């Protein structure tokens, strides 16, 4: 009796649909897809525990505690050649290869590496899914055209993984489970037609299915070793003896039942740590590490076409409280070189209370980065490379002398001289200030004193380097009752005996004293 396929027509759940992509060309190809036309690309990483330890060490073995005893889980190629095999005790492995480095397995580290890889894979598909501790799935039906076909896409993924030091097994199939099983079976399968799935899975050993060993053992006891054997069993009996879950899995793998997956979403904000094996106080070394973190940050933002205006470096110490170093820019940027230059200026003055044990870089809120067109040097003059924009200049200046010391100015429509202007923040994103137009024709000095300076008087006449000679005035400026900074002043233009043009006023507010005082408020530079 053969296993009958489920009656229900294959329906792909709504959740399974890749999230709508904003890019025009993507959605253009994604829309006309028939529901069945889905293609899953599976990346299976059998050596992840080993690869998560990082590249570099040739003689490396990962050990894991199994039932209270440490055993070798995986060994590098070089170590395997020397006879180190999975399942050996660490002592036996060390006896075979004295230079062997033993590393305890870290599931958390593997998970982090897997997520990094998922982030990297997002460049190939808008739908990436972490399907297990060592399995990643991509929905690629919508990406084929963009990446030049199935072969080309597969090659690009394979090359990228190899360059990052991952030995992956890849498989492509119309259902996620079939792709996963084929990848675990190390079949370099590439199946596009749903009708061909059955044929490809038939010969697959059951050990690829990630079923519990007890189930596999009892199946093996019945002489059932591959998927084809399983499919020949009566459905009801199979479900009763091995659980409905397994039956559903088989149906999903064959595409008879929907298999909705959750898309993995990369974090929107960057956060990375660099932990040192020992405390460091060498500032050059710390800067180098920061530079590396900035490079990772740039990669992170590059894959999202984003930039950020703020960064936060945190330097952790063993005993003292962590030192934080925030960096800010006038416009969103992601270039590591740009941030590094700002960091260097700020780092010079940073006081670290203790040597540093770890550095964390946290990115700020991201924003879309608009591309800029390059310029063709048609006029024979190459554009000068070393030039940079105003915002970059302002950032550089502010990084060294402080944000509050670099600003623009704005005119304000107010008749009171000290309120007729304001500073303009050059760092506010897209500061759109309407510049007030000042009434033309009135005489105003080019220099304004921060505070009016009280002038000494001689018989009621103001003195500044001698007796002042009035040229014009008075111009009466009064009131400001709406904000309690009202004034009542008569302004005069005067010339000092040494030829300086001055803007002086007499306070008409006589509440506080008998004689009206004279003040110097501006200089006609």
């Amino acid at each position, binding site marked *: 009796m053969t296993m009958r396929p489920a009656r229900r027509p294959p329906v792909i759940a709504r959740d399974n649909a890749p999230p709508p992509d904003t890019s025009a060309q993507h959605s253009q190809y994604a829309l006309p897809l028939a529901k069945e036309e889905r293609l899953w690309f599976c990346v299976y990483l059998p050596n992840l525990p080993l690869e998560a330890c990082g590249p570099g060490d040739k003689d490396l073995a990962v050990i894991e505690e199994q039932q209270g005893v440490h055993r070798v889980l995986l060994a590098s190629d070089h170590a395997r050649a020397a006879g180190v095999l999975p399942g050996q005790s660490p002592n036996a492995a060390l006896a075979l290869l004295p230079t062997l480095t033993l590393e305890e397995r870290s599931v958390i580290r593997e998970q982090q590496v897997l997520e990094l890889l998922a982030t990297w894979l997002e460049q190939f598909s808008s739908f990436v899914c972490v399907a297990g501790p060592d399995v990643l799935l991509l929905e690629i039906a919508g990406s084929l055209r963009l990446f030049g076909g199935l072969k080309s896409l597969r090659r690009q993924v394979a090359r990228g993984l190899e360059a990052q030091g991952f030995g992956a097994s890849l498989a492509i199939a119309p259902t996620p489970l079939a792709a996963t099983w084929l990848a675990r079976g190390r079949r370099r399968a590439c199946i596009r037609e749903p009708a061909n799935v059955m044929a490809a899975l038939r010969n697959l050993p059951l050990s690829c299915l990630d079923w519990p060993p007890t189930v596999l053992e009892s199946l093996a006891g019945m002489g059932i070793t591959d998927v084809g054997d399983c499919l020949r069993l009566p459905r009801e009996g199979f479900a009763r003896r091995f659980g409905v879950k397994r039956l559903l899995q088989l149906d999903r793998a064959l595409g008879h039942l929907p298999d909705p997956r959750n898309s993995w979403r990369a974090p929107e904000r960057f956060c990375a740590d660099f932990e040192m094996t020992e405390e460091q106080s060498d500032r050059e070394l710390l800067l180098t590490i920061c530079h590396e973190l900035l490079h990772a940050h740039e990669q992170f933002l590059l894959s999202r076409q984003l930039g950020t205006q703020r960064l936060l470096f945190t330097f952790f110490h063993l005993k003292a409280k962590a030192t934080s170093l925030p960096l800010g820019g006038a416009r969103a940027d992601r270039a590591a070189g740009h941030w590094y230059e700002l960091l260097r200026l700020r780092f010079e003055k940073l006081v670290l209370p203790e040597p540093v044990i770890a550095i964390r870089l946290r990115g700020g809120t991201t924003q879309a980065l608009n591309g800029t067109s390059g310029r063709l040097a048609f*006029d024979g*003059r190459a*554009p*000068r490379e*070393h*030039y*940079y*924009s*105003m915002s*970059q*200049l*302002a950032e*550089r*200046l502010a990084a*060294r*002398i*402080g944000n509050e*010391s*670099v*600003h*623009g*100015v*704005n*005119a304000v429509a107010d008749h009171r*001289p000290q309120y*007729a*202007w304001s*500073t*303009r923040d*050059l760092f506010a994103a897209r500061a759109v*200030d309407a*510049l007030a*137009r*000042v009434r*033309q024709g009135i005489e*105003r*000095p*080019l*220099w*304004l*004193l*921060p505070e009016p300076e009280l002038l000494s008087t001689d018989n009621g006449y103001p003195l500044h380097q001698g007796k002042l000679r009035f040229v014009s005035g008075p111009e009466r400026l009064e009131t400001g009752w709406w904000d309690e900074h009202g004034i009542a002043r008569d302004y005069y233009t005067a010339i*000092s*005996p*040494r*030829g*300086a*043009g*001055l803007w002086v006023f007499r306070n008409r507010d006589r509440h506080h004293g008998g004689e009206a005082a004279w003040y110097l408020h*501006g*200089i*006609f*530079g």
Partner: protein
Amino acid sequence: MPRNSDTSSLEKLLENPRVWRARSQPGPAEGLSSGYAQLDRMLPGGGWPRQALTEILVEQYGIGELQLLMPALASLCTEEPGAESVEPGWIAWVAPPFQPYPPALQKCGINLARMLIVRPRNASEVLWSAEQALSSGTCAAVLLWPHVLDDQASRRLQLAAEKGGSWAIAFRPLSARHEPSAAALRLELSASHRGKRLAILKSRGGSPAVLHDVV
């Protein structure tokens, strides 16, 4: 025949890049009109030297030292962007002694959206900021009020101005008159009850002169 060979060997010699001929020296670059005809006539190139350091020695503030620059600055920040610079027309004020007053600047025709005020905290930061602003290629003009400006610093400013294609104007007290300087143009502005006196102390490609009541 021998004469002929002589000229050919002479020409050969002149082709040698190590031979420098006075005739090939470029004339004074076209200056930036100061807006004061009397002053323009006395300056080589008919105006302020672009891409160079100008020093103005002032007896005291308030005798027209800014008024002297205003027409030229106004023309700079309304000028069309040049082919070379990214975002031209900014005017940087480094360590001004008082607050430049926007309503008055606007009246002089200055585009306030192109003003950058920098207030460094010490003497070395003044020079550093000015150098950064000059060499960035963004600032059409950089006005600075340095506490000190020795020969070496003025040379650095001059080089930065050349690099960024920017006009540097340093305001200094009269006491700096006898200090050496790499500035392309040095002016002295003084005032008395009889009027204002503008003296050209040094002018690259020009000659010293004294002008009265320019501003």
